[in-house]
């Protein structure tokens, strides 16, 4: 029996997840709606004055992005572990890290990418100047992608745990704090007219670090959850 190539196996996983998500698109839309709702809370809780709001706009946009991409993470691996699909993947002889990475990429396309698209609009409503759009988009692209992988590690660790969602946030949020620091700092610098290159490069560095080591941690965590 000939084993399929890694790339085609990963592509199959990606396409399967995309199809599954497409059939339940309302679940995909929920984090996005959550994002808009959370960002609406801040003007209500603080002040409707746009010049005041623009001071915290970068932080609000980023915190809300962090929270809403955590929302969908809990179910990332759950159904596959429960119905035995994950066991088949572990036994398939394919490198598990690649398959899980494909799942995470699909998750990012469904939750991270829409956030990146909608964030500038939400930011503008909070008084974010047009000049900072580019930085916001780049920082969120890097940030949400990193967060999806970090969250994937957390989801893989908590997949066999009851009430995993609170625990998942508890595990992932501290690890994601550097992202928040650099992301919102980059947007803030762009708003002030400075070059945001420094924080963006640090974000990119963290992204590549997590991209290279994350799949290993994810597959180790999934093996622990599935094997025992």
């Amino acid at each position: 029996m000939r084993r399929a190539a890694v790339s085609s196996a990963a592509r199959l996983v990606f396409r399967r997840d995309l199809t599954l998500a497409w059939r339940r698109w309302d679940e995909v839309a929920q984090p996005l709606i959550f994002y808009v709702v959370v960002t609406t809370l801040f003007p209500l809780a603080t002040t409707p004055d746009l010049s005041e709001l623009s001071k915290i706009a970068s932080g609000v946009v980023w915190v809300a992005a962090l929270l809403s991409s955590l929302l969908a993470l809990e179910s990332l691996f759950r159904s596959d572990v429960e119905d035995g699909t994950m066991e088949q993947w572990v036994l398939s002889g394919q490198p598990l890290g690649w398959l899980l990475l494909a799942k995470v990429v699909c998750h990012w396309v469904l939750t991270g990418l829409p956030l990146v698209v909608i964030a500038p609009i939400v930011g503008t409503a909070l008084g974010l100047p047009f000049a900072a759009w580019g930085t916001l988009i780049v920082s969120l692209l890097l940030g949400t992608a990193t967060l999806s992988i970090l969250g994937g590690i957390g989801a893989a660790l908590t997949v066999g745990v009851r009430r995993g969602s609170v625990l998942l946030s508890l595990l992932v949020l501290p690890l994601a704090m550097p992202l928040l620091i650099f992301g919102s700092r980059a947007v803030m610098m762009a708003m002030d007219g400075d070059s945001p290159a420094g924080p963006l490069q640090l974000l990119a560095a963290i992204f590549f670090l997590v991209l290279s080591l994350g799949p290993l941690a994810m597959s180790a965590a999934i093996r622990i959850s599935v094997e025992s």
Partner: protein
Amino acid sequence: MWIWVHKFGSPPHAYRLLGKLAPWFGWPALGLILLATWWGLVKAPADYQQGDAFRILYVHAPSAWMSMFTYVVMAVAAGIGLVWRIKLAHAAAAAAAPIGASFTFLALATGSIWGKPMWGTWWVWDARLTSELILLFLYLGYMALRSSFDDPQRADRASAVLAIVGVINVPIIHYSVKWWSTLHQAASVTKLAKPSIALPMLIPLFIMIAGFQLYFGWLICRRLRGEILRRERNASWLNEAS
């Protein structure tokens, strides 16, 4: 070497050995901490800027150091447990986590008390205080993950993965001083070549750090013994021993 590892890795042997080791850590720790307390509070000169208030440094800096040291110990133990499947290493990681969390809390509390006279507020969002707080969250997450599994072996291995992932945060804490320029004074001890803190103040600090280190050794011996007892509560060697 492997024979030694297997011998030490067996719970009855480790239990006896840790019991014998504990006083060798405990008494020197007590002596050094008492000596450093006297030296730091009485003998060391007052700071020309901060007066006597700087003396909380002798608790603050060692606990901040120990909070990071313990995390590394925990992650290394977890890694050993994960790679070579040594249960005792997992038990050591489990025993270290609450100690580390306590040191982190102590560093935060003393930092906050120190901040009141120096900065005028209890809490400042500065780089090192914040990253120390993140470290506390990491410890709490680790302990939460560990306690949420029913199966101890899965708890061991899953939390080991988390500890190794989280250990990336320890260098981030160390370098956050450079990343984030704020109120906190730059690290004054790690620059060994040219310390910016006067030598008479530095000596008791190093004695205190050594004392804390030994105290950690004593604690880990005691806690690991407890952990072994808890895990081996149904084993036959315990009945024979008692």
